[in-house]
């Protein structure tokens, strides 16, 4: 696997994998696992943050309830951050994502509460949610494509185009709704927001097991590819350890989501609504929220795009050396349009999650999201000079930002101080990243 999506990794320096084909160099310990040093660092930071808040809050942070809330709060920013990675890798920036989210949210809210009902589809009709979502995604992709066209074909800097977009789309959303809060939204639509729609315990386990199977298959087929071409491979035990860690993480996550139990009064209400008597002593867990499942699917899709498609390869090549990409026959202008359109579509998906979580569309939805999204990508190791960045890094970056924010709120830090800390952490994260790269000897 030629790994083109990241800087050289610790334990993966030039001295590795240099043996003659067929003979794998003898590696021991962590190095044999070929684990990304930056990934370990970020996971370490996340764990430290969790533990610190756990003790500071008398054991309220690492609980199923809080972790559940943390994941659904992260979802919206995480989805956009995966798209922002591509934008920044191509040496652009998008300051308009929060406003584009607002416009998409407004379009979807109006579609399901006003435009489609006017055509005879009442609120609650099963077609309403899919139609609204498709409309929103088309709107988002069109807005993104417009930005991409202005940047790629008319050569206006992305900073300016999207700074303009920040103002334009925030207020287009205002005109679409006359500045009103639109709600309540369609019940099916609202299931994508978090706590209103979860897989339940059984389906969470099934999805978890499918995920484990997929992960193991991915590892195995990558190994088979290498063996087929006589490339050096990791020792088998190392593959086993990696697979085991991945399986424990996935199933552990499912277990935590399942451990958050639906309050008894909510359960009782559900049973009453169906005209049933609630059995004595019954308890049920929420399981994995649909919104989190959506994040996982988006992340997998974006990772495949980044690593295994020509489209993704060209994004990284253009970020690394635009001239080389152009001389290789890559149409950079069209590529720019596509990448911005992709981020626009992701903003629409984020808008679904965000507005469904709030149960309505409000004027200020997505405000300041551009900063959170850019911060998530950058904390996740995306280099602003282009060419370098990973999807999983952006997800972890989003999670770290959100856990800082919710942790401080939980501990009772003043709101102004929260923002001061988050801002300082962003700068510090980039500084650490610069040191890390320097220690690897990368320019």
């Amino acid at each position: 696997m030629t790994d083109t999506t990241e800087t050289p990794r610790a334990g993966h320096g030039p001295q590795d994998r240099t043996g003659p084909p067929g003979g794998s160099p003898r590696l021991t310990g962590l190095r044999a696992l070929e684990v990304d040093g930056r990934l370990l660092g970020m996971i370490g930071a996340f764990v430290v943050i969790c533990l610190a808040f756990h003790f500071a809050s008398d054991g309220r942070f690492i609980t199923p309830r809080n972790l559940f809330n943390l994941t659904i709060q992260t979802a919206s920013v995480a989805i956009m951050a995966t798209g922002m990675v591509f934008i920044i890798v191509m040496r652009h920036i998008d300051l308009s994502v929060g406003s584009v989210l607002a416009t998409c949210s407004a379009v979807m809210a109006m579609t399901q509460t006003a435009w489609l009902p006017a055509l005879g589809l009442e609120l609650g009709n099963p077609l309403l949610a899919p139609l609204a979502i498709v409309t929103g995604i088309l709107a988002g992709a069109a807005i993104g494509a417009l930005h991409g066209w202005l940047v790629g074909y008319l050569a206006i800097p992305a900073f300016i185009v999207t700074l303009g977009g920040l103002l334009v789309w925030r207020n287009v959303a205002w005109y679409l709704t006359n500045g009103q809060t639109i709600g309540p939204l369609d019940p099916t639509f609202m299931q994508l927001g978090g706590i209103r729609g979860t897989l339940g315990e059984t389906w969470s386990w099934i999805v978890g097991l499918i995920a484990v199977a997929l992960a193991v298959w991915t590892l195995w087929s990558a190994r088979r590819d290498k063996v087929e071409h006589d490339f050096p491979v990791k020792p088998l035990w190392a593959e086993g350890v990696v697979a085991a860690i991945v399986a424990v993480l996935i199933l552990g996550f499912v277990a935590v989501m399942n451990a958050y139990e639906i309050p008894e009064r909510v359960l009782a209400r559900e049973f009453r609504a169906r005209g049933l008597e609630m059995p004595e002593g019954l308890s049920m867990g929420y399981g994995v929220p649909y919104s989190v499942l959506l994040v996982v699917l988006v992340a997998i899709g974006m990772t495949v795009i980044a690593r295994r498609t020509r489209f993704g390869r060209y994004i990284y090549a253009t970020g690394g050396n635009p001239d080389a990409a152009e001389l290789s026959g890559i149409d950079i202008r069209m590529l720019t349009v596509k990448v911005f359109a992709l981020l626009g579509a992701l903003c629409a998906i984020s808008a679904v999650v965000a507005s469904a979580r709030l149960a309505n569309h409000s004027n200020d939805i997505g405000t300041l999201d551009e900063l959170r999204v850019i911060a998530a990508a950058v904390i996740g190791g995306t280099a602003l000079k282009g060419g370098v960045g990973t999807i999983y890094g952006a997800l972890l970056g989003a999670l770290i930002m959100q856990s800082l924010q919710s942790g401080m709120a939980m501990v009772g830090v003043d709101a102004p101080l929260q923002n001061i800390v988050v801002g300082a952490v962003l700068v510090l994260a980039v500084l650490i990243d610069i040191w890390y790269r320097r220690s690897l000897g990368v320019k």
Partner: protein
Amino acid sequence: MIDRSGTPLVELRDMQKSFGGIHAVNHVSIDLYPGEVVGVLGHNGAGKSVLMKMLSGALPRDGGEIYVNGEKATINSPRDARRYNIETIYQTLALADNLDAAANLFLGRELTTPFGLVDDAQMEAETRKIMGRLNPNFRRYSTPVAGLSGGQRQSVAIARAVYFNAKILIMDEPTAALGVEETRMVSELIDELKNQGIGILLIDHDIHQVKELCDRASVMKNGQLVGTVEVDKVTEDDLLGMIILGKNPAVAA
């Protein structure tokens, strides 16, 4: 001796290019035969890079015609040039620093699996094969090319041209950034490609190197062609006279 009785591999006729009223290339014609190395010489700004970029499709031309194997060729983009097996090795090393050797070698022409996904394992295997032939010391297949030496990077660029069956190779100062040993390696490579019947257009500043590597030299000054000579029939001073004074020696080819 080069046989120049047949059809030239490539012929540039009456090429023109202006930038805002300045004639960067002013009615220039040159040709190249199979197995021949033609040096394109001149000061900075003489127009040699612009002339080559029109052939490689990187710059649109204002006028003139390109013939490949005697037939008129339509070259308006780098992709067009590649269709005629014209490959270019740029002075600035057209490699994406953040990608590894295989990704660079196949950039724009990736091998794919039946599902349309890029087949990295296959590309790495092909890269190992061709690098084993061109530069047996090359080992670093899995790291971004940013970490490679100038010579290693140059060998990736040359491997790209060779892998895709270049018939016409444009080299823009291929040894400008290289050390003595690496320069020798590139010289040997040029000789080998020449023996395979590939025609090479070599842009260079180093008169000594031109005398050693080239069969003919076309000298440009201020956008115009001073003349084309067989390098064995002229002295280094003759060539310098052409470059600096724009003066044709008595024995022009």
